[in-house]
């Protein structure tokens, strides 16, 4: 299971790559595998606000629909337009081309409270 060491993780299986106040967000490889064949990703509008722990979009798979929960609060500064056209990117490269949104974080403390790779690994181990 690919869980990059340089990222932070939420217990809802989103990853966060912080760079100053800006942070890129996506779903983990584990989540992508669990969701299965992704057919559609619904993302918020650029400029909208997201709140930590609250749904900011959905992923539709053949079998199910899954909500996306923001790992941190802030303003959406960019969304990945490519995954709208090629939702399979989320499965193929969850930490790369399959990223979802970029957030300008309003509270740095929220990202500090997320899990590191080891903590996320433990979380998954408990689920299997």
């Amino acid at each position: 299971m690919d869980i990059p060491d340089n990222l932070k993780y939420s217990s809802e299986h989103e990853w966060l790559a912080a760079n100053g106040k800006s942070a890129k967000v996506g779903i983990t490889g584990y989540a992508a595998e669990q969701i299965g064949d992704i057919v559609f990703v619904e993302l918020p509008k650029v400029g909208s606000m997201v709140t930590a722990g609250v749904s900011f979009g959905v992923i539709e798979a053949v079998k199910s629909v899954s909500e996306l929960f923001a790992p941190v609060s802030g303003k959406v500064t960019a969304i990945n337009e490519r995954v709208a056209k090629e939702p399979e990117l989320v499965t193929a490269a969850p930490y790369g081309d399959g990223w979802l949104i970029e957030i300008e974080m309003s509270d740095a403390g929220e990202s500090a409270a997320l899990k590191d790779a080891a903590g996320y690994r433990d979380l998954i181990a408990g689920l299997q």
Partner: protein
Amino acid sequence: MIPFAGWEMPVQYKGLVEEHRAVRSAAGLFDLSHMGEIFITGPGAAAALDYALITAPGKLAVGRAHYSMICDVSGGILDDLIVYRLGDSRYMVVPNASNAAEVSAALSERLAGFDAELDDATMRTSLVAIQGPRAVEILQPFVDVDLSTIRYYSGTEMRACGVPAVLARTGYTGEDGFELFVSWDDALRVWDTLLEGGADRGLIPAGLGARDTLRLEAGMPLYGQELSRETTPFEAGLGRLVSFAKPGDFVGRDALEKAKDHPRKALVGLKLSGPRVARIGYHVYLPAAAEPCGTVTSGTASPTLGFGIAMGYVPADRNAVGGELEVSIRDQRASAQVVPMPFYKRSN
């Protein structure tokens, strides 16, 4: 693995869409051991089933099968099932796992007064299904009969993969294929034999997930979603099954005769516009209407067709093909057009 009607069932092996595509293009192997198997035997078996079911199993030729239903006295559907006539006075009835015990009990009750006996073999019978365009060539080496002579919707007792079986040309995928009913003790041997024999022809195991998307593309209803006690066969678009012509009474006849021309709702196939997926329980609306007029019973992103498909109930006068409706998906309306079912039909 998930719990399903008291059984532990595989939702997927390699991945739902890969399994779905294998069944459409090559073949898939399904473990359907959860399905019920009820044998009705005796000189009165034909007459008993004519009384118990809405179809006329008494008119089936030996070796043939048909799709049927068991209804209650009010005409509500207790289950949909397949009836196989294995001999003059020997039938096998295959109900859904979730209803097997109830169907068995209802049949027992309805057999009273007929010279027929019921043997519920569900808990000692496995079902292995091989489905897809390459099913014939994969299965052929493991049976003594020429499979090209076996017609669709037939079922015969014979040896297959070295064990006693009921071999049936039936399925729930919209593809050609076979179902092998064998004893629990022999099931693993059959599974392994076919999987190994078909591996180089693209055969892979397929789970419940693919079974659901395949049957939905094929426009086949699922009990608990499209079919229920609150639904008559006419409302489900399966009124052709009801044999009013057969002699004698059958359970539900009076109610079904009355219900025939007064459907309270109609099952329709819907093609969704846009990428969002309509799912079970979502509301259906007439265009721009504030109040819902119906409900989605099954929906998915069709792996074969590449767009969203759904089945649902709408008012009986809104079932015309081409009609425009809307489905509410997370508080937004998606337009949906009534289309003919099946959504997918195999070319051969």
